[in-house]
């Protein structure tokens, strides 16, 4: 247990063993602030008073009856602490010297057994864990490949990860973070692969973290990130088990927090956020196409509306004549300057998205579709926006959702706004200025101390495969070189096949 937690609890009144049954009862009640569901059951076996106590909603009653009370009462033994530890058909047992210790166990789903006038209390964990079943990932859905998502229970999550990374190399270091509300956090990595520096950095950051409480894995990620000013996520947060284990198998350092369905994968590069596990499941050429498509989509998403604003506000001469006529006609009914028009429509889109996310699924879908069509049409007819802009905005909104990482998608949508405003102020010069600043920002950023813009800068051409595009597995047999993993070869390259002439190939099997 963490030192701080212990210090926190030591400040409370101490109950020293041995105690009488009644004293113990009172002491526990005090500690747990008269918890209503705290059950005490006193039994007498061979003239020994045994007190069994637990919080009723936390424990598995079936196991309590079958594995505890049955042997305890019908065993008819002279129970001592040693016999309790050895003689009950239950797994996780523990001895405790103080009442406080037992109480912390009680609230995490244990039962306590005390034999009067003994100086130790025995506890068994028979937690009745309420958890939802493993579901399909909702935020990062893909078409082919494994369809398991993390749930809120760290045990289930560890179970899922262990069963997809079957190796005794997988280390799952345990940390407890949070001084007031401690949360269990696990640091997972492959011992034989992950870079020691990375592991050490993450370990250091986790141990140095002094907060009272972490609400979620995403909160933890924010606490241990490199730069808190940036809008860009620096660690990949995923609810997909396969994405998480993919990270582990690539030698990354991964973190799971209890109570959170988000796994943290670090370090991640900017380009990594556009990588989906689906790219691995697809054929390489198709995957490369989709990867490229996502990069283009990202670019479109944050550049299209600023360009529209810049063009329509300042640079009429750049717009092709025919398009200019269409644009001019649709703009002529709009009373606002283009920046306002764009911001207004972007706002509508954001509202629709936000509302769609908050409302129940069925209502949300309807709002999304109906809202999009009806509102857009109405806005044009009301002369609030031009119809060309509707297309432009719709395209950039759509494009922003193609990023496999939801956090990256949101980051892209957010950086669009300053770009739009600056385009409205300074035209195309402003857009270039914004882009320059953005790129420099990305260049300055790090993820777990590693450059964020890898492998483009620092330029590592071997790593371009899997970052910007995907090569066939026959060629890409290397892991990332820039991360200096312990072993960067995935498998030995096949010996190059002898150059064959046209008719030297086997042909069809006819026999």
């Amino acid at each position: 247990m963490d030192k701080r937690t212990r210090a926190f609890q030591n400040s409370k009144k101490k109950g020293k063993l041995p105690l009488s049954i009644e004293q113990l009862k009172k002491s526990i009640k005090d500690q747990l602030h008269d918890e209503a569901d705290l059950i005490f059951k006193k039994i007498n076996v061979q003239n020994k008073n045994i007190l069994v106590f637990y919080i009723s909603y936390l424990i598995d009653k079936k196991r309590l009856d079958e594995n505890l009370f049955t042997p305890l009462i019908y065993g008819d033994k002279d129970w001592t602490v040693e016999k309790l530890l050895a003689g009950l058909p239950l797994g996780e047992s523990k001895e405790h010297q103080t009442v406080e210790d037992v109480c912390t166990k009680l609230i995490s789903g244990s039962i306590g057994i005390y034999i009067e006038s003994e100086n130790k209390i025995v506890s068994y964990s028979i937690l009745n864990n309420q958890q939802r079943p493993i579901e399909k990932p909702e935020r990062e859905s893909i078409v082919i490949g494994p369809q398991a998502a993390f749930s809120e229970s760290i045990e289930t999550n560890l179970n899922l990860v262990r069963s997809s990374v079957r190796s005794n190399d997988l280390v799952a270091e345990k940390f407890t973070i949070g001084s007031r509300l401690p949360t269990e956090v696990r640091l997972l990595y492959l011992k034989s692969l992950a870079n020691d520096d990375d592991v050490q950095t993450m370990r250091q950051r986790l141990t140095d973290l002094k907060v009272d409480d972490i609400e979620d894995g995403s909160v933890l990620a924010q606490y241990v990130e490199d730069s808190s000013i940036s809008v860009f996520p620096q660690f990949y947060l995923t609810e997909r088990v396969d994405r998480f284990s993919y990270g582990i198998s690539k030698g990354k350092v991964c973190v799971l927090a209890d109570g959170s369905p988000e796994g943290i994968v670090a370090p991640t590069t900017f380009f990594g956020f556009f990588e989906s596990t689906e790219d691995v499941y697809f054929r390489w050429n198709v995957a490369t196409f989709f990867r490229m498509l996502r990069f283009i989509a990202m670019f479109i998403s944050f550049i299209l509306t600023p360009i529209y604003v810049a063009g329509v506000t300042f640079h009429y001469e750049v717009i092709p004549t025919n398009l200019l006529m269409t644009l001019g006609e649709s703009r002529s009914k709009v009373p606002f300057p283009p920046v306002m028009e764009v911001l207004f429509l972007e706002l509508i889109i954001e509202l629709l998205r936000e509302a769609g996310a908050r409302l129940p699924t069925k209502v949300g879908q309807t709002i999304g579709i109906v809202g999009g069509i009806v509102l857009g049409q109405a806005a044009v007819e009301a002369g609030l926006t031009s119809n060309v802009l509707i297309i432009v905005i719709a395209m950039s909104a759509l494009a922003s959702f193609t990023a496999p990482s939801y956090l990256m998608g949101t980051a892209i949508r957010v950086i669009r706004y300053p770009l739009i405003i600056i385009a409205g102020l300074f035209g195309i010069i402003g857009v270039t200025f914004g882009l320059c600043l953005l790129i420099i920002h990305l260049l300055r950023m790090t993820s777990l101390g590693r450059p964020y813009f890898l492998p483009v800068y620092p330029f590592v051409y071997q790593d371009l495969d899997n970052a910007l595009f995907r090569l066939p597995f026959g060629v890409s047999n290397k892991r990332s070189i820039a991360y200096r993993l312990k072993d960067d070869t995935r498998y030995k390259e096949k010996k190059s096949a002898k150059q064959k002439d046209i008719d030297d190939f086997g042909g069809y099997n006819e026999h």
Partner: protein
Amino acid sequence: MNINVAIKPGLRIRAFYLFFIIANIQTGTGIMGVSSYIYKEAKQDAWLSILIAGVFVHIIIFIMFIILNKYENTDIFGIQTDLFGKWISRILGTVFIIYLFASLLTVLINYIQVVQVFLFPLLSPWLLTILLLLIVSYSVLGGLRVAVGVSFIFFLLSIWLVLFLYKPITLMDLGHFKPLLEASPKELLLGAKATSYSFLGLEILFFIYPFIDNKKRAQLPTQLGIAMTTSLILLVTVTSIGFFGGERLEQTIWPVLILYKSIEYAVVERFDIIVVSQWMMVITPIMILLVWMITYGMKRLYSFSQKKTLYIVLFLLLIGGGTIKEQFTIQLIIDYVAKVGFWIAFIYPLVLFPLVLIKKKIEKKKEGYN
């Protein structure tokens, strides 16, 4: 001041970035107007002048490497201290830094002028200066690694502009190059000298050398960088001569932008505007590298904190960029920088070369006696 500099491994950069650094720092606003300068001197044989200048610069780089390799891990300040002693080297170093600042200023005001002419005639120069300085300060604060990264990425992001020169190339009139080899050797050399403003920037090698990781392989990327600049200048000049012909080229201040003006596409009607705005990505790395050189130089010379120097330089640039407005003044400053730069960047290494050789020989003899 120590002659040799110790650089932490984390701060070093790989040698191959030198290609981008050199190619980037040389291809500034100079390239927009260089063709008319050369044409004024060498007429239709300007291309030959450029080749001569290119070869000359290659030789200079070669000499610079010989000088630098004589030492363990040093920069221009270390060499000067070794040769001339503490005080003279400080004076020389200060001259160097003033020159760097002047060329930094020309890059800024020249770009402001281009933007005013092509995009926003009424744009306040203060504003554009502030925007550019924001970019510069943000990346210089990130250190040399970021500065090099910016020059690398921005080079890749702006080199595609060259591809679009194909349209003016198809409109070229090869007759403009005839009769061949009409210019006298003197005219050719004057033409070669006229390129000097565009070739300025190679002095960065004297500053950045200690930061290079694998020094043995530094020569090739640097020479390739020079070759890249030479071929870009060559391409631009040949295209402009072919496109404009004599008199009009001489009268044009920025022939390259007029070349881009003749391009139109279904999506973009006026390409020069794209080029001018995209040019920000060409000049910001130059400014970043120059500012870095100044701050680094001040640290080496006077142990002045780099942050302080940065803010002072930014302030001076802001004043300069905001107040210098007349086309004529700008031209004058550029001409001066080109003249001084010619001596500092091209002739000075030639002066240093024999001095370093002699000095090293004497040292060796001394060691021999001992």
